[in-house]
Each structure stands twice: as C-alpha cells, then as structure tokens.
C-alpha cells in the first residue's frame, strides 16, 4: 500500500521541509527568549510568628537604630555605616549569643539598611528588622 503510493504519485507525499524550518525557527525563538531570569537577592523577610515564647535566657539584643536622616546608633551610641560591624562585634564579645535588632525609621535609605543587614549576615550575626515611627 505504502510502497504503491510512493512509486506512483510522488506529489502526494507531503514535503515537510518548510514546516520543519518554521518549527526550528520557533524553537530557537523560545530558547532565546526563555532566559531563565536569575537575579541575585537577599531574603529580608521577617521570621514567621511562632507560638513559643522567646527564650527568657537569651541575652538582650544589640539595638541598631537608623533614623530618618540615616544616622546610625548602636545601643544608642552614634556611629557610621562602616563601623557598625565593629561596634556590634564589640558588644558581641561580651555577650556572644546576642542578636541584632535593626530598628529603622521609614525614611532611612534602603541602601544603608541592606548594607548593615548584609554585613551582619556575612558574619553570622542573627539579625531582624523592626520599624519604628516614633522619634525616640
């Protein structure tokens, strides 16, 4: 049956080449556009709420405050952005397990907060962020 077709009328055979061309072009288009977009980023999400009460034994956190004018205070002592880590490390030398609580006011710069967060993260200091809106 098949053989008879092939031998007798060649024109009935479907020429696949143009379709294959189109399919290949589509394939290449989708491969090129499917740039699996990968961005580098930080996870700054707060930890999920837990029912367990905070450990009473835990040392008090080191409070790093950043106010609206980007002034930085580590435990109420003013410092600048490059010295936050050394200031925190000084406090952690006394209380090695203490975490850092980043208290930010709304108009502080994003860049400074990310830099502090990143420095803490890179040095294995547990850090969490909290917003303050009062001018204390």
């Amino acid at each position, binding site marked *: 049956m098949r053989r008879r077709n092939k031998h007798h009328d060649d024109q009935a055979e479907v020429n696949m080449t143009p379709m*294959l061309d189109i399919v290949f072009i589509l394939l290449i288009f989708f491969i090129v*556009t499917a740039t699996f977009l990968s*961005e580098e980023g930080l996870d*700054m999400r707060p930890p999920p709420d837990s029912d367990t009460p905070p450990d009473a034994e835990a040392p008090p956190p080191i409070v790093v405050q950043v106010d609206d004018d980007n002034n930085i205070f580590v435990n109420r002592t003013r410092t600048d952005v490059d010295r936050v880590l050394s200031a925190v490390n000084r406090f952690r030398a006394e209380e090695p397990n203490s975490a850092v609580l980043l208290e930010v006011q709304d108009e502080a710069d994003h860049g400074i907060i*990310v830099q502090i967060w*990143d*420095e803490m993260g890179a040095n294995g200091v547990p850090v969490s962020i909290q917003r303050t809106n009062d001018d204390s």
Partner: protein
Amino acid sequence: MARRVSRVNTGEEEIELNMTPMLDVVFILLIFFIVTSVFIKEPGVDTTRPDAMTEEDRNPSMLIAVTAENEVWVNRRVYEMNELRGVIEQLLQENPKGRAMIQGDEGANIGLILDVQELLIEMDVEVHISTLQT
C-alpha cells in the same frame, strides 16, 4: 536537482532520511519551551541597587522596582501603594506560583520597601530584595 536524482534510484529506499523521529523531538522541545517560558514583565525603570555579599540566586517572575524618588514601578507603570494589591493580584492570576523581587534603589525609603514587602508577604508571595547584579 537532488530530488530528481533520488527519484531515479527509488530502488534503495534506505538512503532516504527519515525525519519523523527528529520532528517528534523538535516538537517536544518546542512545547517544553513554550510552556516553561514565563514572560517576565520588566518594571521599566533602572534602579541602583545596593551591593551585598550574602546574596543568592533567585528566579523571580515578578519584578517590582522602587526608585530613589519613592515611586513604585510594575510593568512599566508607576503605581500608588493602594493600587499595588490589584496589580499584583493580576500578575498572580497569570502565574499563581509567582516569586517576587523588589528592586529597591539605594536611596529609596526603607519604609516604602518594607510596605511593599509586607503587602507581598500578606498575599503569600515569596519575596526577596534584589541586590546589585554582578
């Protein structure tokens, strides 16, 4: 020309290339790429993002930019904070498992970034803060 030659020696059919299996493979690849391609909507604004050392690679499908002028950009448009929820819901409909990334400018207010982040967390969207791409 070549066809004519091949038609002459119809005797040896084995020489003719059978394209069907290749076509099958190509189609499957094509369908794979069509299905997996998520067209990411760029925010349409450039932000100078802060550099970080602890950054990790993520594959976001939703980009939200916050500029130094504290404008929130999604899909080439500026939105107010109260419009943002509707816009994100719309994006989530297209891609329910969307992961978001906030491209905050260094000079943007942290309050606004945290507002956007809180909104996304509230909507159960995985969210990360984008940093400088190296």
